[in-house]
């Protein structure tokens, strides 16, 4: 197909196939726009809004949530909708991240797909929650559909092929898994987090058999802290020594960015307390 290119042009897609074709046709000049809360602030970040945008709001395949052995989430699902998903404790961290992020007016619009796709958004709350939860992304392009681990996607986010769209986010929700999220902000509500933390654990016979600790807002992209996660395995959830060790390991695994909200050293200094709070928040009663 041929998509007419004009400065700051906006094109409305009505299907995944059409959206992918438009984006492929536009090449590097094209970008999808979901809720728009990140892209609309591009001028505030001194990023010129000179791209061609493909509006996704009228693509029906991007909506809806289904809950089964895994939770299947359309990329256009808003934070408000995500915060209301009725699923087990494996999804608790994602629900908490969605409910506590930003403000109601933004949560009603900002989408999970946009949060994962937003380049330069170190503070995105859903990203560490999705990383900890082992989310996988269904990606659609003009050549077909594929699935990819969110960690792999984030590592190559700045160089994804033109025409590729995040269609769905799939979060496994096996029995025995529980998760939680914590964030530190200057004020109690709203604001970007200085640090955000998500923890997901698999519990068997009261012992942590597997764990994933993901940290956002410290490095430019949220990161899975492997050594910190390992520190929890084999111990009872909440074991004080294991939790302290996880905090130390996490701080050692990260290279903190400087910012106007907080200096780099401060993010690392508060990280162990955030991890401790997140672990304390995990509710095993229905895991």
């Amino acid at each position, binding site marked *: 197909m041929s998509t007419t290119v004009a400065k*700051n*042009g*906006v094109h*409305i897609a009505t299907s995944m196939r059409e959206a992918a074709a438009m984006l492929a046709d536009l090449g590097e000049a094209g970008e999808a*726009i979901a*809720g*728009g*809360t990140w*892209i*609309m*602030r591009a001028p*505030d970040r001194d990023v010129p*809004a000179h791209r061609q*945008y493909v*509006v996704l*709001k*009228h693509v029906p395949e991007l909506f809806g949530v289904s809950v089964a052995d895994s939770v299947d989430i359309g990329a256009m699902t808003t934070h*408000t909708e995500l915060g209301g998903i009725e699923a087990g404790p494996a999804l608790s961290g994602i629900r908490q991240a969605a409910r506590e992020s*930003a*403000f*109601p*007016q*933004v949560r*009603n*619009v900002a989408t999970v797909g946009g949060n994962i796709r937003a380049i330069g958004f170190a503070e995105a709350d859903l990203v560490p929650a999705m990383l900890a939860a082992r989310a996988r992304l269904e990606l659609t392009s003009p050549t077909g559909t594929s699935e990819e681990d969110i960690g792999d996607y984030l590592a190559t986010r700045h160089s994804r092929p033109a025409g590729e769209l995040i269609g769905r986010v799939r979060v496994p929700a096996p029995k025995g898994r529980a998760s939680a999220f914590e964030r530190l902000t200057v004020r109690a*509500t*709203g604001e970007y987090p200085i640090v955000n933390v998500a923890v997901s654990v698999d519990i068997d016979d009261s012992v942590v058999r597997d764990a994933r600790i993901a940290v956002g807002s410290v490095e430019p992209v949220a990161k899975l802290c492997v050594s910190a996660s390992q520190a929890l395995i084999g111990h009872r959830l909440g074991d004080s020594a294991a939790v302290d060790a996880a905090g130390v390991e996490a701080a050692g695994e990260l290279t903190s960015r400087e910012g106007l909200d907080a200096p780099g050293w401060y993010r690392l200094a508060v990280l162990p307390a955030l991890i401790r709070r997140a672990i304390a928040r995990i509710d095993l009663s229905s895991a």
Partner: protein
Amino acid sequence: MSYSFSVNGQEVDIESPGLRPLLSVLRDDLGLLGAKLGCGEGRCGACTVLVDDAPVAACLYPVANADGSDVRTVEGLARHDSELTAVQDALLTHGGVQCGACIPGVVMTLTALLDQDARPEDSEVRSALAGNICRCTGYQKIVDAAMAATETNGDPR
């Protein structure tokens, strides 16, 4: 490009760049000056309007995304010849309106809340207002007004 949506029940057809903020269209094209440009980055709530019944920051809402939607602004609540809504009336009665800059956004946030839940708890009112900054009232009078509005919004508490 042209975008069609309803504003306070009236169909409009807007010729505009798609990334233009809905707030700009409402104020500059349609003369609806209730929603204000405050921070311009979705933090203050002065620009709050309802899109398909949900409060949104109109300063960050691309008009292209409004296509096919139902937009409500403070001007649509009480016409010149009609009574104030319960929310508007309670804000006046309880001294919740001082300089007034934030009030159109506050009114729309509370209107959406009471549309969804006729009897919200105090904590739910405060959570709903987390995205509406007021630098005059200290919020208590606004919360008092919201709780009072619930008395006349469906079943009495």
